């Protein structure tokens, strides 16, 4: 699988990958620690459970969203921005193979970096003696963080591929996050079904255990749909 070797070298040979990954880790650790300063009035606990701190540092954190999106947007963003897509597609004329090679690399890279970030956050809490039991299980945190990471990485990946605009691919997922919140805030009371058809709201419903099958299905449909649009455009468009 030369495409994977190629993608591995592409990703590791630019400084942006390393810097962004480092920032994800630092941001997760910093926000996990900053979370210890918040009081948990609802639960009436002295300390916030460690799993809540780690999950809170990653899930819904706009800084982490932008950083994950940066990693997701790189796969095609740099290629279109600097014209190297023509070298890539000359070396690999089968565009479907290029698409899945980049998709696999993006998923693997973002999940790995976010896993490291979660470990870094936990390690910092342990070092500072800020651990507390309770809260969700580690397994729950793991799958929710994985889905959250995939969501923003794939949104960035697809948006960059569809628009061939690297900055839009990075900022697009954050805009979508804010836009969904605004739309739901404005129309959610009148259109009760609205949150159930939006990608990020569906993800939240899934995490909350509300209509799990439907929420997961809507989320997956959005992700697959956007990826398919990107794939079709990649195959048809001039490089």
């Amino acid at each position: 699988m030369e495409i994977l070797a190629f993608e591995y070298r592409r990703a590791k040979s630019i400084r942006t990958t390393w810097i962004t990954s480092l920032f994800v880790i630092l941001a997760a650790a910093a926000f996990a620690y900053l979370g210890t300063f918040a009081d948990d009035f609802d639960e009436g606990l002295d300390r916030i459970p460690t799993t809540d701190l780690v999950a809170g540092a990653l899930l819904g954190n706009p800084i982490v969203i932008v950083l994950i999106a940066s990693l997701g947007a790189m796969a095609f963003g740099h290629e279109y921005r600097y014209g190297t897509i023509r070298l890539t597609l000359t070396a690999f004329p089968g565009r479907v193979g290029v698409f899945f090679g980049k998709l696999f690399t993006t998923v693997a890279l973002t999940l790995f970096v976010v896993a490291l970030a979660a470990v870094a956050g936990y390690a910092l809490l342990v070092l500072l003696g800020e651990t507390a039991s309770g809260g969700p299980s580690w397994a729950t945190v793991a799958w929710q963080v994985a889905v959250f990471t995939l969501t923003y990485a794939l949104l960035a990946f697809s948006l960059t591929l569809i628009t061939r605009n690297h900055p839009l691919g990075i900022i697009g997922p954050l805009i979508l996050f804010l836009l969904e919140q605004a739309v739901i805030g404005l129309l959610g009371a009148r259109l009760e079904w609205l949150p159930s058809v939006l990608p990020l709201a569906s993800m939240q419903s899934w995490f909350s255990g509300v209509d799990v099958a439907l929420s997961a299905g809507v989320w997956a449909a959005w992700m697959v749909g956007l990826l398919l649009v990107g794939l079709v455009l990649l195959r048809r468009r001039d490089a």
Partner: protein
Amino acid sequence: MIVTASNLHKTYGRTVAVNDLSFQVRPGQVTGFLGPNGSGKSTTLRLMLGLDSGRGVTLWDGKPLNLHAQAPKVVGAHLDAKFFHPSRSARAHLRMLAAASRTSRARVEEVISLMGLESVAKKKPKGFSLGMGQRLGLATAILAEPEVLLLDEPANGLDPQSIHWLRDYLKYYASQGRTVLVSSHLLSEMEVMADHVVVIARGRLLADESVEDLVNRSTTNDVLIRSPRVDELAAALTEELGPDAVRLESPDALAVSDASTDRVGDIAFRHGLPVAELTKRTASLEQAFLELTESGQDFRIGGGVA
């Protein structure tokens, strides 16, 4: 490896960039790909590589490129001197592309040395000059030692020594039984580099023949004859060759077309006219190219849109 481009066709809106273009590029020779600005050369190269969508098909040894197991071993292309990530070092750029064809690190170093990139191999290409960018692009193209080289204006920005080296290298590459297609505006360079030319204008094929045949077809191939009795000589030549064949070149010289030096000399001799000079003048590739493309050029300097 024979490269066969068949019925390549590409439009941008109502503009036809490449119009049902078919030609073959054969191994063992350097084929020049010539055409005026905007004639569709770069688009044709991209269509051949499958980078642009359009009609037609290009077969590489009888198969589309995507059916070959390793495309980098089939074709190495250099389309632009700026196709690199500005902060990825030249060496990392080449190693990344080497991974696409399982090319060894030793070969990467060999190519860096061959292209004279040793001193900049660790540097980021964002500060590269056009010439250095061309070298990196050429290094990319030859990295996997492909059967076919497709180069779009590779000499742009190169210094004279580098152009000389490029010419020798491409001739050597073709002499190994490989296929080389080079587009260029440097016609004097192509004249000494190319064995065969494909000439297009407005996306249409104008010529697909050897450089020699193209040049010999030119109407600027003629015979110059100089004589102190030029009026009498003109009358004699016109009588035997027709008025269209004889043109006054200077007060004491005539240009005679469609006749050999032997024939012109013989006519002068039979009429008892003294001859000071008798020279066969052969057109250059540039003259032949200009004749061929003068009606097919979309954009002319000083002429606006034709």
